[in-house]
């Protein structure tokens, strides 16, 4: 029942966001019908573009999951961007250093990304457990530490052949891209990351609902004191929660830097980290909701270029639509009240 209500609210938010977007298109003196036609065509019209949509959605699924998982356990992880960046750096470092065969190298890169991201989030978790430092503050600071770490590490150890501002390109043996998948989707960016993301969605849904670990972590998120009195180690729970959230964001890093792209750039905090908050919000913090929301955002991101090419609508409109949808899902409480009132009125008339 609850899931259905969240789904309805998410769909209403999306519809309202699209309506707001069409108003903007009208202001830009374009036809919203054309605009949306090309926007969705751009993300869906052939197998290659569908592949790109999924490839774009992959890191969003994982960062969204990272934020949602932390949120379900009472923590606010603003640091997905930094954790993702570190995850990407660790994966790139392994991928550029070792010349192992692909079936060995790629799993090592994935493991390193999870480890790096997890470590990056474990620090704020430990600070909160030990000194009660708020995780919003510490994760943001960790973002910048990640930013500057990449800024100095990449040019010093993994400098690219042409550009000072990016790492060398990963070889095909160190890439999540695989030939059969690329062929299947007609040369799209899609890579093994999408499978990682889906497996992780299933795993996290399982952990949250069916395991003692999920039960403990959620209990601590809801009520620290009662959990402590019940014998749950509250500090340990907080650190574990943050570490898992960080590992998820770290995995987003490997799917992005070694899957969607094939090298890491300096001076950029990945926007997917922050988009993860929006994905989590629209997905009502549920793993399956996150999957749906991330694919939808992936679709808008992929389609906006095509829309811009075919019409005079600026691509920023797509970002504006995303922003509007976030506003509507953030204020979904209001819509719910409106809905309840409406239903009561109809019910009262009987």
């Amino acid at each position, binding site marked *: 029942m609850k899931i259905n209500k969240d789904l309805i609210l998410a769909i209403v938010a999306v519809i309202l966001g699209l309506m707001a977007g069409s108003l903007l298109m009208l202001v830009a003196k374009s036809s919203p019908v054309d605009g949306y036609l090309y926007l969705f065509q751009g993300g869906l019209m052939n197998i290659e573009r569908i592949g790109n949509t999924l490839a774009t959605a992959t890191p969003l699924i994982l960062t969204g999951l990272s934020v949602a998982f932390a949120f379900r356990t009472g923590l606010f992880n603003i640091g997905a961007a930094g954790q993702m960046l570190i995850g990407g750096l660790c994966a790139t470092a392994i991928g550029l250093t070792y010349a192992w065969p692909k079936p060995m190298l790629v799993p090592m890169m994935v493991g390193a990304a999870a480890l790096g991201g997890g470590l990056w989030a474990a620090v704020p978790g430990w600070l909160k457990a030990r000194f009660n430092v708020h995780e919003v503050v510490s994760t943001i600071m960790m973002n910048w530490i990640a930013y500057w770490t990449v800024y100095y590490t990449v040019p010093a150890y993994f400098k690219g052949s042409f550009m000072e501002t990016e790492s060398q390109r990963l070889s095909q043996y160190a890439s999540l891209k695989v030939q059969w998948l690329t062929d299947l989707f007609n040369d799209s960016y899609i890579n093994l990351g999408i499978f990682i993301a889906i497996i992780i969605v299933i795993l996290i849904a399982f952990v949250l609902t069916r395991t003692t670990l999920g*039960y403990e972590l*959620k209990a601590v998120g809801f009520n620290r004191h*009662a959990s402590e*009195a*019940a*014998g*749950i*180690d509250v500090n340990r729970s907080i650190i574990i929660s943050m570490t898992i959230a960080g590992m998820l964001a770290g995995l987003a890093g490997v799917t992005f830097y070694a899957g969607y792209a094939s090298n890491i750039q300096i001076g950029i905090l990945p926007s997917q980290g922050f988009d993860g908050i929006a994905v989590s919000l629209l997905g009502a913090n549920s793993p399956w909701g996150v999957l749906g929301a991330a694919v939808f955002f992936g679709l808008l991101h992929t389609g906006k270029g095509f829309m811009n090419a075919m019409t005079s609508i600026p691509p920023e409109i797509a970002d504006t639509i995303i922003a509007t949808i976030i506003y509507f899902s953030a204020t979904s409480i209001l819509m719910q009240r409106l809905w309840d009132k409406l239903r009561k009125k109809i019910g009262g008339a009987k």
Partner: protein
Amino acid sequence: MEYEYVVEMLKIRKEFPGIVACDDITLQLQKGEIHALLGENGAGKSTLMSILFGLYQPDNGTIRMKGKEVSVANPNAANDLGIGMVHQHFKLVHNFTVTENIILGIETTKGLVIDIRSSAERIRELSKKYGLKVDPSAKIADISVGMQQRVEILKMLYRNADILIFDEPTAVLTPQEIQELMNIMKNLVAEGKSIILITHKLKEIKAIADRCTVIRRGKYIDSVYVKETSEEKLAEMMVGRNVSFTTEKEDKEPGEVVLRLENLSVRNTQGVLGLKDFSLELRRGEIVGVAGVDGNGQEELVQSIIGLKRAQAGKIIFNGADITNHSIRQRIGKGVAHIPADRHKHGLILDYTVRENLILMVYHQEPFSQRGILNKEQIHQYAEQIVEQFDVRAGQGAASSTRSLSGGNQQKAIVGREIFRDVDLLIAVQPTRGLDVGAIEYIHEQLVEQRNKGKAVLLISLELDEILDVSDRIAAINNGELVGIVQANQTNENEVGLMMAGVKEGVSA
């Protein structure tokens, strides 16, 4: 007089999903009376009053004031009609002063500036008129709970309310504060106000109310004159059966020692010793009551036994083993059960379902989980048994959100959870706080049953009646120190009262 009643609620009906909260309830309030509204937890008292206060709209029925039909759309409308309510949980801004809290929402201004001074002056006058003794410039955070309640009363008076609703006002007060509150209420009716008192404490009704309306499970039972009705009769009307006020228990020879506290010292939250050199033995088959005024070391005592606080010095021996430095979980596993004083803070996870709360102490053990995976089937069965055996009433049974349960049913869930584990030591802290006579009787019976089964029960309560009624031995605590231990059947209220005040003389046994 052109009207007989200042407020009439006639045939009020209100349904919530799965439950009829109010089933054609009628309540008529005369001018200048204190009218008690009596009912068990979850009987529909709060719903009825929320309807009068405009928080809910009735599905059926009419509300009349001074003979005229009115509709109360929201709390603001209720204010305009002269209805004020003191909620059980106060609605005050803690870092504001008394005056700032009272004028919040209806500030009078001088130009652009709030006119605090004249407001404070009016509050002082009101306070004086009704004998409230409130300092308008004090900060809420600095004044006692009793004083905070008076601020809530002043809030209503400042808004010129004539009909005052008190929602279980004595639940949070000490005996002295209760006495003072009663005097205040008498002053209020003497000045022409009318009061509806929501309560389930019969003593208070007898002491102060003129008439009493009884409701049971959402149904109207009767309205009676308090003077002509005995406490037993009121209790019977409320619960629907005979209620005994004393707990039956046969004599029992206590067995071996379960818990031994040796010279225990524990720091309180301020960092000074809240419990000093405290020694006590607790045996199988006995209930030891700890009597004391609030804040005299009870919290430190309980928290050190269950492991929430570290002992500064001394030892805790449980079934012969030293558990002084054991973790909370180890102690739970060894057989310490705990009914906490604050069920919302330490007892329950309100956002979890009843089922999830019932496994809070055992979820990590077989058969409820194996290798970290929860076994839903086993959990269902276990929760179902507790819900049934302890009569936890909820709209959707064990699947209900715990938040949606009435206080009494939440407490039953905790009591059920702890007793069902069948362990050697049960620590019950204020187990009947805020509950009605039916539920109190039930919980006392449960404690005695545990004792009869050979468990050791440690009862900590601020209610001396409860301690005297249920305990086998009574330990009096004052200022963190054990004053003395007496046999319950060889002592009386006076002696224990003196010991609670720290007087050691006359200690028998």
